[in-house]
C-alpha cells in the first residue's frame, strides 16, 4: 500500500496563508485568477523527436517526445499508440526521492495523458506503418526540473508544445524523409486548489502544501471538456466545480494563444 507522504508545513506558514486567504490575497500577491508568467521554449533537446521546456513562475518542466516502431493493440490494428510517463527526480525538489514512479507521478502522467488522448490531439490513425504489424508508438516523457507548484498545467503545456513541432523519425528507420507528427488542436489544462474556502488558479508550492482540494480540467479549442480530475483529501461543492470550469474556459483561451504563437 503506498502511504501518501505526510506533508509537513509549518503552523506559522499555514496561519499566514489562512489570514491572507480571508482577505482574498495570495502569498505572492497574485489575484485568485492570475497565472504566474508562462514561458514556452520548443526544440530544446536535439536527440528528442520533439521537446519543450515550460516555466510557470519558478516551476520548470521539460517534455521530450520519442517515437518508436512497435506492434499495435489487437483492438486497433491500424492505429499508433501513445504512452505518457512522468518523473519527479530528486533534482527538482528536496522532497522527491529516486526510485520507480510513486502514486503522485503516476496520477500526474495519467491526467496529462487523458487530456491529450481524449482531445485526440495526436492523430493516432495516421501513425500506422503496416496494419496489424507495425505502428508508431509516441512516448511523452515529462521530466520535472524545478518544482514550485502546479505540475499538472506545466506538464500538460510542455507535452502539448513538444508534440506540436515533433517529427516522425522516418530517416532513423530507413522509411524516407522525416515528416511532422500529425496533430490537431492541443488540449489546455487548468488547475485550481482550494484552501480556507479560497479557490485559486495555478497554485504555487506554498498553496499546494496547505490545499484541501485540487481540480484540473482539460479543455479543447471549443472550450468543451475532455478530461477532469479532482484530487486531495477535501471536497468541492457542485457550484465550486461548475465555477472552476467556467474560470478555466477563460484561462484556457489565453494559454492557447501562447501555444499558437
Amino acid at each position: 500500500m503506498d502511504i501518501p507522504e505526510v506533508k509537513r508545513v509549518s503552523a506559522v506558514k499555514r496561519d499566514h496563508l489562512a489570514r491572507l486567504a480571508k482577505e482574498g490575497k495570495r502569498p505572492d500577491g497574485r489575484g485568485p485568477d492570475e497565472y504566474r508568467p508562462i514561458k514556452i521554449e520548443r526544440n530544446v533537446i536535439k536527440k528528442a523527436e520533439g521537446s519543450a521546456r515550460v516555466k510557470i513562475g519558478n516551476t520548470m518542466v521539460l517534455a521530450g517526445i520519442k517515437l518508436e516502431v512497435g506492434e499495435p493493440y489487437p483492438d486497433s490494428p491500424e492505429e499508433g499508440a501513445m504512452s505518457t510517463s512522468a518523473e519527479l527526480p530528486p533534482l527538482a525538489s528536496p522532497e522527491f526521492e529516486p526510485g520507480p514512479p510513486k502514486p503522485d507521478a503516476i496520477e500526474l502522467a495519467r491526467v496529462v495523458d487523458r487530456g491529450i488522448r481524449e482531445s485526440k490531439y495526436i492523430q493516432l490513425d495516421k501513425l500506422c506503418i503496416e496494419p496489424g504489424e507495425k505502428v508508431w508508438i509516441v512516448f511523452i516523457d515529462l521530466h520535472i526540473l524545478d518544482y514550485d507548484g502546479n505540475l499538472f498545467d506545466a506538464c500538460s503545456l510542455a507535452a502539448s508544445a513538444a508534440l506540436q513541432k515533433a517529427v516522425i523519425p522516418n530517416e532513423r528507420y530507413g522509411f524516407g524523409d522525416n515528416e511532422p507528427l500529425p496533430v490537431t488542436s492541443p488540449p489546455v489544462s487548468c488547475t485550481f486548489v482550494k484552501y480556507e474556502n479560497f479557490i485559486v488558479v495555478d497554485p504555487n508550492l506554498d498553496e499546494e502544501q496547505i490545499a484541501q482540494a485540487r481540480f484540473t480540467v482539460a479543455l479543447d479549442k471549443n472550450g468543451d471538456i475532455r478530461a477532469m480530475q479532482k484530487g486531495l483529501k477535501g471536497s468541492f461543492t457542485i457550484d465550486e466545480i461548475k465555477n472552476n470550469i467556467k474560470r478555466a474556459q477563460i484561462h484556457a483561451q489565453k494559454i492557447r494563444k501562447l501555444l499558437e504563437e
Partner: protein
Amino acid sequence: MLIKDGIRMDGRKPDELRPIKIEAGVLYRADGSCYLEWGGNKIMAAVYGPREALPRHIQDPTKAIVNARYNMASFSVEERKRPGPDRRSTEISKVTSEALESVIFTELFPRTTIDVCIEVLDAEAGTRCAGITAAAVALADAGIPMRDLPVACAAGKIDGTIVLDLSSEEDKEGEADLPVAIAPRNEEILLLQMDGHLTYKEFEEALELAIKGCKEVVKLQRKALLNKYKTFEVE
C-alpha cells in the same frame, strides 16, 4: 447504436442503474467488510484499523492515514491480469483514499492507519465507483466515525445522450464517462474524474444525473447496514 427509442442495449432507461446488491459484515477477520454486486461487478471490501501505523516514521501525529488499495483479481477480466498493482490501479487507489479520507474523522486517531482493501473479483465497468461504495459500507461496518456515508456513481454520454451508470459496452463505445463520489447529505464532491467529450451544458446534466444515481445507491448502502444490524438483533 447504444440506445434506441430511449432504451439502452441492456433494456435500461437512460437514468436507470444496473441491479445492485449489497451485504455488510461478510468477513470473519476484517474489522468491517462489504460484499457488493453492481451489474456484472463483484467487489469485496474490508477495513482494518484504526491501528498503529508502521513503520513509525510514516505516522502522522495529528491524524490517521487512510490507505485504500484497489486491486483487480487476475481472473476478474477478459484477458488475465498479471497480479500486483499497475498504473491504473495505483491512480484509483490514490483518488479513492482521498475521497474516503474526506469524510472520516481522522483527527480522532493520530498515529494510526485505516486500511481499506477493495478487491474486484469480477469486473464489468464502473469498478471504481462500486469499490468506493463498498468501501464506505465496510468503513461503517468497522465503526469508523464518518461525517457522512460516501457513495459513488458514474454518468456518461452515449450516442449523444446523457445516461446513468455505463455498462461495459457503453463505456467502450460511448463518448464520455464521469465517475463521481459524494457525501450525500450536502452533496459535496469527494471524487470527480472525467474522460471523453462533454460540452459544459452536457457536463451539468451528467453531474446532476450522477448525483441522482448516488442518492439511490446510498439507500441500498443504508439498507445493507441496517440488515446486518437486524441480523444481530435476531441472533
